[in-house]
């Protein structure tokens, strides 16, 4: 139920992270979500896709790794050079 808020926090964090890589665009976001984090992955994927659609972020993949505890971490970001991006 709060997956929309989580997805929105993830995109804000991506936006911030991209400030450090001005020549790049993000292709994939990697999250680590614990089994006790209380986050439904399917719902998070759905919200994430809905928020990314028709924005500067599109296309942007979401990858979710499992963890044993209550982790709710933004683990990594995959980038590509804007110059090399297919137009």
């Amino acid at each position, binding site marked *: *139920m*709060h997956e929309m*808020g*989580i997805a929105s*926090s*993830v995109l*804000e*964090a991506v936006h911030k*992270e991209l400030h450090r*890589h001005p020549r*790049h665009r993000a*292709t994939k976001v*990697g*999250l680590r979500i614990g089994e*006790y*984090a*209380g*986050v439904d992955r399917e719902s998070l994927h759905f919200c994430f896709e809905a928020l990314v659609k028709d924005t500067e972020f599109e296309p942007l993949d979401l990858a979710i790794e499992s963890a044993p505890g*209550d982790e*709710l*971490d*933004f*683990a*990594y*970001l*995959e*980038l*590509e*050079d804007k110059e090399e991006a297919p137009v």
Partner: protein
Amino acid sequence: MNRVSVEKKILGENDQVAARLRAALARAGALSLNFIGSPGAGKTALLERTLERLPPHTRAAVLTGDIQTENDAIRLRRYGFPVRQITTAGACHLDARMVETHLRDWLESGIELLLIENVGNLVCPTSYDLGEDAKVVVLSAAEGEDKPLKYPGIFRKAELMILNKIDLLPHVPFRADLARENARKIHPEIEIIETSCTTGAGLDHWLHWLAARAERKKAESFAEVAS
């Protein structure tokens, strides 16, 4: 492809606000409890019975969260302590910023006990740190005794489980022993107090827990200031 490691908490901003709140509450020596439970578990009734029994000089304050209405605040204001309603307008949980915004002048005015009633929900509030000293999960005999297994997150994080509505036990199939066992399967150290806000059973035990926890908080804050 170029992968950069980020390694940040997704709710990092909430955690920062919560840390600020926790520090401010510690300076004030105020105990803060975050009550989480399903809609109808009896969170508001428990707070009503608590406020009713608190020594009148207690500098207590209540924040109560709901998606809509001031109903809970109206119920809780009858006991003479300051109460503020947080209406989340759709959000299924409180976050640290809402608590910080609604606290306003309370810390300066010297509260010693902050009771936060979260939005009725066993899932979402679990992820949001409100700067509290402890989460208290309220489970009632009108629910299922397997709730700790179905919603392990909150039972894992809660320091105390209030098993409420025990006056219903003779009338419902709910097995209190099984509920306790399930909670301890998820969190072996969880403390459990059984209450009925209708008959008053167990409320002395709960108020004793509350008073001891508040004393401990004051002592910790004092030790910190002194060091």
